[in-house]
């Protein structure tokens, strides 16, 4: 058996959990795949919504972390699953807009999934060390142009990687790939640590990952990419600085199924999400982490994701960042 077949067989295994035509969907537990490891932003968000969502669905939701390759391993498991609504995916900005935009070798495309909702938006902020002498984004741009700078990310093709390049490009750094060095780390926590210990100059990531360091005065935010200021982040917004294009740069978490998911299943998910996201406990938990709850209908979600993908893709093509190997 070839490796490809083995892989298909594995995914089939997950698919077979979800067989039999649905008399009244759902009639048994639903397997929810989280393509990132425990403790990450996606995992915490998914597990926080699992409880209210489980009540709305009326059947248990089984959370499965399938980690690896920047979210690709778990995404492929759902891509190959049967489209009966018993295997769903917590999709994330990294796995479903940045990765498809940057990686030519990715085993899936956006069209392989049907999004039923996007329920959470995380603003993005850029931060430096307070003793770095960088006070504003202009300082950073000047430094990058003059001496060069460096930034950390949670890996090639992660949102952090694209975000730093996007910000530098918007603020007029010519050829940001040459002038700013990308030093990838193993994960989001390591990426933040790399700024703290001086390995890199700056980081652009979700505010939830930075909130603790900013509150403690260990990191200084210099930019948030939303239109509105973010609580706790004393930094100008992208709109204040006259770069509204940067508002496309936000993190999000949504739920998707395989592309052959039937309409009635998608419609049911829309209704469940609307109910679950109103749960005060869930809203409080997510707000405490700096996320904005914003439930989109399946159509809105598709438009939102498509637009973000196209923005990212245009940037990647312009700078020649696409990974072909």
């Amino acid at each position, binding site marked *: 058996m070839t490796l490809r077949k083995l892989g298909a067989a594995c995914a089939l295994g997950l698919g077979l959990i979800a067989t039999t035509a649905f008399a009244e969907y759902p009639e048994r537990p639903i397997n929810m795949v989280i393509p990132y490891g425990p403790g990450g932003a996606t995992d915490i968000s998914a597990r926080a919504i699992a409880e209210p969502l489980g009540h709305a669905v009326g059947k248990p939701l089984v959370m499965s972390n399938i980690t690896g390759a920047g979210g690709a391993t778990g995404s492929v498991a759902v891509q190959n699953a049967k489209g009966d609504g018993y295997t769903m995916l917590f999709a994330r900005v990294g796995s479903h807009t940045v990765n498809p935009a*940057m990686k030519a070798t990715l085993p899936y495309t956006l069209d392989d999934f049907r999004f039923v909702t996007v329920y959470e938006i995380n603003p993005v902020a850029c931060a430096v060390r307070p003793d770095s002498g960088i006070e504003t984004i202009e300082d950073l741009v000047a430094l990058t142009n003059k001496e060069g700078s460096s930034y950390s990310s949670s890996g090639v093709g992660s949102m952090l990687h694209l975000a730093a390049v996007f910000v530098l490009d918007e603020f007029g750094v010519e050829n940001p790939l040459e002038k700013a060095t990308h030093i990838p780390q193993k994960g989001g926590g390591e990426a933040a640590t790399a700024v703290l210990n001086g390995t890199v100059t700056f980081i652009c990531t979700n505010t939830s990952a930075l909130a603790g360091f900013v509150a*403690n005065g260990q990191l200084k935010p210099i930019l948030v990419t939303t239109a509105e200021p973010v609580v706790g982040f004393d930094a100008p917004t992208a709109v204040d600085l006259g770069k509204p294009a940067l508002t496309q740069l936000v993190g999000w978490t949504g739920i998707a199924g395989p592309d052959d998911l039937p309409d009635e299943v998608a419609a049911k998910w829309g209704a469940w999400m609307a109910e679950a996201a109103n749960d005060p406990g869930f809203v409080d938990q997510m707000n*405490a982490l700096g996320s904005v709850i914003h439930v989109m209908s399946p159509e809105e979600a598709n438009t939102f994701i498509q637009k973000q993908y196209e923005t990212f893709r245009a940037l990647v093509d312009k700078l020649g960042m696409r990974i072909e190997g």
Partner: protein
Amino acid sequence: MSLFDNVMAGLALVGNINAFLSLAIGIVIGVIGGAIPGISATMAVALALPFTFPMEAINGILLLLGVYKGGIFGGSIPAILIKTPGTPASSATVLDGHPMAARGEAGRALGMALWASCTADLISNLSLILFAGWLASFALSFGPPEFFALILFSLTIIAGVSGDSLLRGALSALLGLLLATIGLDLIYGTNRFTFGDPNLMGGLNFIAVLIGLFAIPEILNTVWHPTGHLGNVQKLGKNWVTFADYRRCFKTIVRGSFIGVFLGSIPGIGAAPAAFLSYSEARRKSPNKANFGKGEIEGVAASEAGNNGVAGATLIPLLALGVPGDVITAIIIGAFMVHGLQPGPMMFVMNSDIIYGLFIGLIFSSALLFVIGGLAIRGFKPVADIPRRILMPMVLVLCIYGVFAVNNNLFDVGVMFVMGWVGFVMGRCHIPAAPFLIAFILGPMLEDNFRQAMLMSGGSPVILLRGPITWFFWGVTALTVIAIARGSLDKARETG
């Protein structure tokens, strides 16, 4: 507020039955989870996390810490009894623990594991309380060049676990290093030996490799020679660890605990390397050097002290800097944040009652671990009496479930089977498995940190010698290599 006020405020927070109950429940969950191969301490903490959301902040966090500590100890139970490390951290325990069990001294090995774990746990907690601030500032001076030097030094452990032949140990380590290159390249994101398969892009699952390398060859050996065990008594037996054993190993335990504390306070190393480093140091210093790997109780003590020494110390960067030391503390940070707490220097000012409450709870956790661990050993005792030819199929099924559960991926079960055959062939050729495992853990770290350092310096190797920390580790690496070279030359002269 004075220290006394802080301690009183902390006591007020944890001085109730709920706090202790949470801690005890956590330890029970951890020990049971750790004892089941495939449910690592990481997974047990992740599973327990959602249940702590409705609890009070301090109780929830104590429960998770209990799971962590219990899990690291619990892993040693199957490592000793059925040669299957319950968590990666207990893989060093297999080296001497299982031979002891095969000799009919499982009870003594388990007892020593418990005593060493609790002692190390206590030392680790006390270090956290006393040195948190100092060690935390040290942790941030570790950038890629320092990590590179530290990991290079850690690779010299391989010489300590190679057994008779250093060359075969090196071969085993190289095999581990080569297999660890499978997956996506860190710096460029390109494919290495993935053949376009999404399952391989994430690299080989570490637990699948670990269980494949240790547990499956045991099964295959039984298949090859089903009656080979007859005549060897494998019973828990009457012999329990004695105080004399403990006193003999005390120095090793303390040394192992401090190795654990040191490595634990540096983010990104983890408990498994600490256990191996402690083991190889113990072997180097021990008068019974030759007996290591053949069932030396000091080896069990060293590994368990090393891995439990990490458990308290990983909280140092967590509490003092808000930086998670390993995956488990990354999950625990989630629990802090859900309760609206921001770990970091400000927490010592704003939530000092919680910090001191945690400290007090942690001190008691060592004692609770001792009691609960002792009960667990008795609970798992019957495993040693199961006839081998019933036990082995049982281990097979357990491994299948456990390895699947780690990443919900059937592909990992396939990886485990294949690694099982690799391990079996290595065993037949007398190639030790431990160097493979150490290399598999440390190899990617060595490569990644090297390349990160090169990125920082723009390709100049001078950065690898940029400060006193790197000089120190390069120095000790050089000394160790010289010592190993002299040792093997002497040996070659003796035999040749």
